[in-house]
């Protein structure tokens, strides 16, 4: 068979198969593309099909609080979340999403099941230190327990994000953003909370949350 014949057969096949299927679209500016399609066709490349990301640069989204999720997406879209991870990756992706699509994405991820992170290891002392900060805070520095807002199971509560089984690297980076910058104005409350945390405190609490014990 000649090359040109193969070429035309393939081209005809491709055209016949339908060039634009909205169920498999990666178009971020078409309000008709469903949130599930966007989650699968675009978001999943970094955040995983089930909201569990492989690379710690990208947060886990499984079972994330929808209120928090929508607030973040809207903060990216309006350029009110300024941390580098936000603007480098998320400003552009969110720029044309509709409120309905954002809500759909929030529901998509809220329905996913979180899981401990495979291969996560931290030493027992760090985890114990993190548990103590999470449950009791650091009284002498006036640091409140994380569980007061994020829930006893670190499951989050409306505008307070779920933290259980989040990548420790992501938690440390975000605590650093809160503590040292004004890049996340929507999380202003965390600036006060994180103010007195040492690097060791952050590592411990992040290790505890990444490995959060199953109940």
């Amino acid at each position: 068979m000649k090359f040109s014949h193969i070429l035309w057969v393939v081209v005809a096949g491709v055209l016949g198969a339908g060039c634009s299927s909205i169920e498999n679209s990666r178009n971020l500016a078409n309000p008709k593309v469903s949130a599930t399609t966007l989650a699968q066709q675009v978001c999943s490349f970094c955040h995983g099909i089930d909201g569990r990301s492989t690379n710690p640069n990208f947060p886990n989204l499984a079972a994330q609080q929808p209120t928090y999720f929508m607030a973040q997406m809207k903060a990216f879209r309006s350029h009110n979340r300024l941390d580098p991870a936000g603007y480098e990756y998320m400003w552009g992706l969110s720029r044309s999403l509709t409120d309905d699509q954002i809500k759909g994405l929030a529901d998509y991820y809220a329905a996913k099941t979180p899981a401990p992170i495979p291969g996560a290891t931290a030493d027992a002392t760090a985890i114990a230190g993190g548990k103590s900060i999470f449950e009791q805070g650091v009284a002498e520095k006036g640091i409140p327990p994380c569980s007061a807002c994020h829930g006893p199971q670190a499951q989050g509560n409306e505008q307070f994000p779920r933290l259980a089984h989040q990548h420790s690297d992501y938690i440390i980076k975000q605590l650093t953003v809160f503590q040292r910058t004004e890049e996340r104005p929507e999380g202003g409350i965390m600036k006060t909370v994180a103010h007195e945390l040492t690097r060791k405190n952050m590592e411990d609490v992040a290790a505890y949350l990444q490995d959060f014990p199953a109940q």
Partner: protein
Amino acid sequence: MSSPANQSQRWRLKITAYGLGLISLLTLLLPMQAKAVPAFARQTGQNCVACHAGGQFPELTPYGRMFKMTGYTIGERTIPLSVMALASSSSIANAPAGTAKSGTPILATASVFLAGKITDNFGAFTQITFDPYAVDNGDGSFSGHSNADNIDIRFANHIVGDKQDWIYGVSLNNNPSLTDPWNSAAAWMQYVPVPSPTSSQFIDGTAPYPGFASGGNIAGLNAYLYWNKTVYAEVGTYRTADRALSFMTAGVNPRTQLSGSNNPYWRLALSHEWGPHNLMVGTSGMVAHVYDDPTDTSDPASVGRFRNTGIDAQYQYILDPHTVTAQLAYMRTEQTYSDAMSAGQLNPGLSDTNIVTRAKLGYTYQAKYGGSLSLFNLTGSTNNQSDPAISGATYEAFYIPVQNVRIGAQYTRYNKYAGASNASDNNSTFLYVWFAY
């Protein structure tokens, strides 16, 4: 009257000043939404680091590979136009008299990209490059010339759900391995930019596939499949880029002439990602039937055969602020000479085999500061060719002040050149400023 030396110095200063002035002006005037192929970035709205490991190109991140495999279709359609320019100065330790532009700052190359999403399933990456030093007029002057560079036009689909994940697609392209998502593939394991006018695909200057060296001059149709982010398989076949496909070789003269359409290319790779790490191990190859003389295709006895087999691997570690990419590639090329050529050779009937091994290790910090080290070694039989052996190392350091500008320095040291061990005369230094919008 000023002496020629003074004039030349003044020219250098002028060119450098104009070049730097232009770049500064563009940098100030243009919004910072510009990336390696900035049209792609405008389409997704993301920064270059989303697709290019550590903001360094051409190395792709896992997401960048997905962007490519899904046919450049993520995002929203924008004006699919980008430009890229390179100002540089390269010098050779002991350049033979008359070596073109050694040590002179020049505007080395400029490219225009037409790149981006066409429909939800179709996208393209096409590059047209202008080389001001394409033709050496022999009197110290040069004539510029534009030609089709990389062209990759794709259809892709992604079937994905909780239990399955398939990406498949078809590419019409003009270089074997241009379609490859990993950077240890022959078309992509390279330094960008490279010295000009004596540019080479890699610093060992060998063309991994026939027709590859001049860039953009054969036409291929490839089909690929990526299953579960684990197994990548691709097959394709190449032919002369003539008739309806001649746009893929526009400006390349003479174009490589392949015999027929039975010049298969294949690729198989296994990949795995865990935490901030990802690894690929793969193999690839091609069989090409090439006319000895691209201007004369009248004699079927003047068709030689190249058989390539390669093994390659790539490892990446990406966790802000660190990015590490390590690549390893081995390629064996067996050239069976045409009957016409064989008849007049010293050892008629015997083929020659070249083996190229390349390793490259790159690091970037904060997608701003970076460097790399690469080693290359080429050995070959000498049945009917002179000893082609080349080996050496390239060191590079670069700085990315804003993501659409890169300033870098490369030094290449040769242990062996054209079979000779006394090769240090060929050591070269290359300084560049690269810009894209």
